[in-house]
């Protein structure tokens, strides 16, 4: 493989507090050097990056790639390519596939498919319980040995507090986090959107904020009890933020993520029964959005993860009650982050990159998230000022279910490099 010299870009590496114009040299699949005026090695490809930003590749800890089982809406290959188009050099695939990723063969399958795709890295997340049924623990040792980086029953909460306690304790043996979709199923019941004034006007069943907060509180107490690492998926309420802040003050081992849509949309997006605004946890109120943004800024929430959830056009073209929950997010995440969070004045660009690359790597103990010498050659180059319009028909993902269609965004990926190889543009 040829060495790659990325020249003259603004190199932002929050892991080393680096933010300056510099050159980045990648060789043998690793970061060889970052510095000013680097020489061009023999046979190297040179990329002029003046006016662009060069950063460690983005890492998404929460995506649904639907393979095996629903290859009609996404495969590991199409998902990995969509990720690369969004600037991600690595994603973690949730196990709620069909069949569920709860055994080492299934984990191995994902690893193999990801290698064949040759785009972004795909790390499997395995199930907490067999079949995600919430009854019996899966064999964490086998799963980690085959390549799993975390366990989760996402799609569902781990309802049994006993099982969650056992999972948190047992996971400590392998140094992996237990990621929970925090939701009390009896409070969620038939809810399809946030329980509030908009739901009342539209005549739709609501999911109260308490449905999430109850499980957040429970998980924090169990993390305290077991000293196990609990990772809270897709936080959506100001009450959850409060609970996490107090837990972190006490030193409880908790990490938390938030999606781009929960940082930028409220339940108003459901007006007109827009099924592309239907997801779980639901979009909530302006006060929740404000609290989530402050939490992301001050570190109460560690990172951004998309919860990329592909669905078929026909499935979403239905009465609101019947449509499935979820939207895609890989190809709009960076643009939304720059437009709404950086240009919006909440985060600096280095802070955004920290939340989308450095922190994810740290929280799941993944390689990457840094441009230190010897680190994996996973790099994203993007134009922080490029304006573009979101056109779902252009997505590399197989699915088009996004509420941002037609939206004008600033910030676009120019090149994504994984192991020193350019994976986007393909």
């Amino acid at each position: 493989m040829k060495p790659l010299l990325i020249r003259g870009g603004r190199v932002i590496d929050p892991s080393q507090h680096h933010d300056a114009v510099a050159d980045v040299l990648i060789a043998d699949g690793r970061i060889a050097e970052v510095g000013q005026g680097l020489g061009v090695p023999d046979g190297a490809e040179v990329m002029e990056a003046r006016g662009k930003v060069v950063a460690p590749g983005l890492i998404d800890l929460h995506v649904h790639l639907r393979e095996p089982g629903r290859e009609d809406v996404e495969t590991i290959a199409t998902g990995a390519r969509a990720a690369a188009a969004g600037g991600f050099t690595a994603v973690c695939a949730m196990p709620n596939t069909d069949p569920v990723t709860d055994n080492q063969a299934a984990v191995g399958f994902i690893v193999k498919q990801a290698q064949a795709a040759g785009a972004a890295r795909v790390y499997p997340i395995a199930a907490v319980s067999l079949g995600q049924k919430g009854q019996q623990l899966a064999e964490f040792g086998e799963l980690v040995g085959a390549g799993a980086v975390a366990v989760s029953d996402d799609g569902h909460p781990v309802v049994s507090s006993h099982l969650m306690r056992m999972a948190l304790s047992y996971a400590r043996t392998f140094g992996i986090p237990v990621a929970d979709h925090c939701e009390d199923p009896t409070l969620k019941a038939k809810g399809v959107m946030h329980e509030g004034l908009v739901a009342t006007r539209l005549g739709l069943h609501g999911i109260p904020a308490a449905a999430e907060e109850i499980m957040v509180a429970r998980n924090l107490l169990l993390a305290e009890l077991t000293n196990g690492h609990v990772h809270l998926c897709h936080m959506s309420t100001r009450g959850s933020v409060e609970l996490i802040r107090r837990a972190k003050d006490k030193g409880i081992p908790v990490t938390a993520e938030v999606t781009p849509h929960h940082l930028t949309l409220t339940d108003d997006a459901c007006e007109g029964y827009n099924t592309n605004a239907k997801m779980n946890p639901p979009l909530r109120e302006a006060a929740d959005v404000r609290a989530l943004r402050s939490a992301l800024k001050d570190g109460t929430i560690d990172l951004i993860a998309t919860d990329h959830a592909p669905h078929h056009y026909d499935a979403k073209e239905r009465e609101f009650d019947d449509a499935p929950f979820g939207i895609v997010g890989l190809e709009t995440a960076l643009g939304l982050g720059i437009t709404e969070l950086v240009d919006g004045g909440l985060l600096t660009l280095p802070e955004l990159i920290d939340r989308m690359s450095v922190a994810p790597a740290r929280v799941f103990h993944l390689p990457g998230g840094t441009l230190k010498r010897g680190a994996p050659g996973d790099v994203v180059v993007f134009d922080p000022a490029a304006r573009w319009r979101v056109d779902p028909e252009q997505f590399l993902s197989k699915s088009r279910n996004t509420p941002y269609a037609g939206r004008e965004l600033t910030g676009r990926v120019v090149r994504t490099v994984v192991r020193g190889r350019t994976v986007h543009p393909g």
Partner: protein
Amino acid sequence: MTERFLGKDLLGLEPLTADQIRFILDTAEPFKEVSERAIKKVPTLRGKTIVNLFFEASTRTRISFEFAEKRLSADTVNVAAAGSSVEKGETLVDTARNLEAMRIDMVVMRHPASGAARFLADRINSNVINAGDGTHEHPTQGLLDLLTLRDQFGRIEGLKVCICGDILHSRVARSNIWGLLKLGAQVAVCGPVSLLPMGIEDLGVTVFRRIEDAIQWADALNVLRLQLERMHGGYIPSLREYNRVFGVTVERLEKAPKDLVILHPGPMNRGVEIDSRVADGPHSMILGQVTNGVAVRMAVLYLLAGGRPEMAEAAKGRAGEVTE
């Protein structure tokens, strides 16, 4: 004016202006007279095809619409379909397209999912009339309730109306709230807190925790049916308790400072939300509601079916009668 006064569809009362609502009520008056004739038929919608597409069982609303359609000389077809798209295996989108392909003029639809009427209306050119979508709206019921109140009191503005019962699951309640507020009434709701939707006060509605307080305050009560499912869903412990605490009984009404008018959308659970003696009593306008229902529906069908302004302009241009 390049748009029809009411638009293409009637999906709810929330999107209408007070003017539009008043106009529909005024248009219902002459249709009341048609139903009193020996020959209860006018040729107005002759040759129009109307499909009654009911995904939920309903006898009274469907029959009311059917009478309205037939008295306007329209051709009607009743389709009773299974509930959700998933259950019946044909999506609502396909149903919409099939109807359109048969060149029907109007669809009257009742469906268990909120937003279903809007979903259909966005996808076909025919007029769509919402006969009840999930827990969202039931606009013709709201209109006939308004007309009945207006018959009795001569006005809506300033009237104190309390809607009693399971507001959370009621599309009738929501349509009534919108219609009453827009026409200037004072609106209250009364029922167990577990059956009140979040944010109801933000709509400008007073909440009474006890039926006795509502009876002291109101000029009229609109009593909603309490469904058995609510008990199974854990919202209230039992129907018996509901009747003891919230039932509109003769004894409670005797303590009212004035003669309260009683409305009920039907069908009634006699002995649960309302006593038989109240339902059949002198202050009950329940049967009047049913009569007004046909007139209101005739008015809605008439206003949506006609009224293409370009054609009206062209007709005037032909120097036809002074139309007025």
